[in-house]
């Protein structure tokens, strides 16, 4: 099981918050840690798991949501 997804297959709260913050504009891990007021090491670990799960991708401008990530966010809202 990946921590960014709960045992019921839903996004974790942290994963949801991160996806919401980068769904419009990519952001680097450092900025996300500041915006969420979460230690940088936790944000980096979450983004790595979310990258492995195919939800986000790291670009030159920072992390951005993949199609799979958008679909996962959409499912949460339904």
């Amino acid at each position, binding site marked *: 099981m990946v921590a960014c997804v709960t045992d019921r297959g839903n996004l974790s709260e942290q994963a949801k918050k991160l996806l919401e913050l980068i769904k419009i504009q990519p952001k680097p891990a450092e900025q996300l840690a500041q915006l969420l007021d979460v*230690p940088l090491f*936790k944000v*980096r*670990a979450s983004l790595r*798991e979310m990258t492995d799960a195919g939800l986000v991708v790291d670009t030159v401008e920072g992390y951005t949501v993949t199609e799979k990530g958008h679909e996962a966010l959409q499912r949460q809202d339904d």
Partner: protein
Amino acid sequence: MSELMIANTPHSMPRIGEKAPDFEAVTTHGTLRLSDYAGSWLILFSHPADFTPVCTTEFIAFQEIYPELKKLGVELLGVSVDSLYSHIAWTRNIEEKMGVKIEFPIVADLDMNVAKTFGMIMPEEHSTEAVRAVFIIDDKQVIRAIIYYPLSAGRNMDEVLRLIQALKTADAHHVATPANWRPGDAVIVPTPSTVEAAEARMKEKDIEVIDWYLSKKKI
């Protein structure tokens, strides 16, 4: 190299000034890498075993200085060779019985990868438990200080905190700190490295010159 020599080769350990070796490990806060902490300072510390008395007092003491450490931009990461479930049960027990919530992650180092990489196992002390090691790692992931305590003696958190403050003060002001230094005390000005500079130092008025090689100033 013969098999006997390989068997007797001591496991190398990182030293002060070296880059801390990266690792990925399962922790009570999910899978973490040492490199996740780049950009902030880190105290990586080992303890011999969960559910043991000295370690329990140390964990409570580490938690007590954690807010102060965070203000200084320092994170805490514990390590022992216990399982993840043991760590979870122990920290829950500490909260339930002693009223202290352990907020920092603890590595479940069952294969002793982290303990061996950082030289935390001292076979003469115990072959399967880590001693009480403290590695202070800076924001560039360089090891800045190492403290070792045996199994029988709990660590002194005042010293851990004082050491962090001393290192950060030395970095910020390009100075050194004398014995028993505390924040607010005078610091040591770098020693002159030429005869001419030593002569000039003796004439300086705005610092406390005890002798050319020992001068202090307030910051």
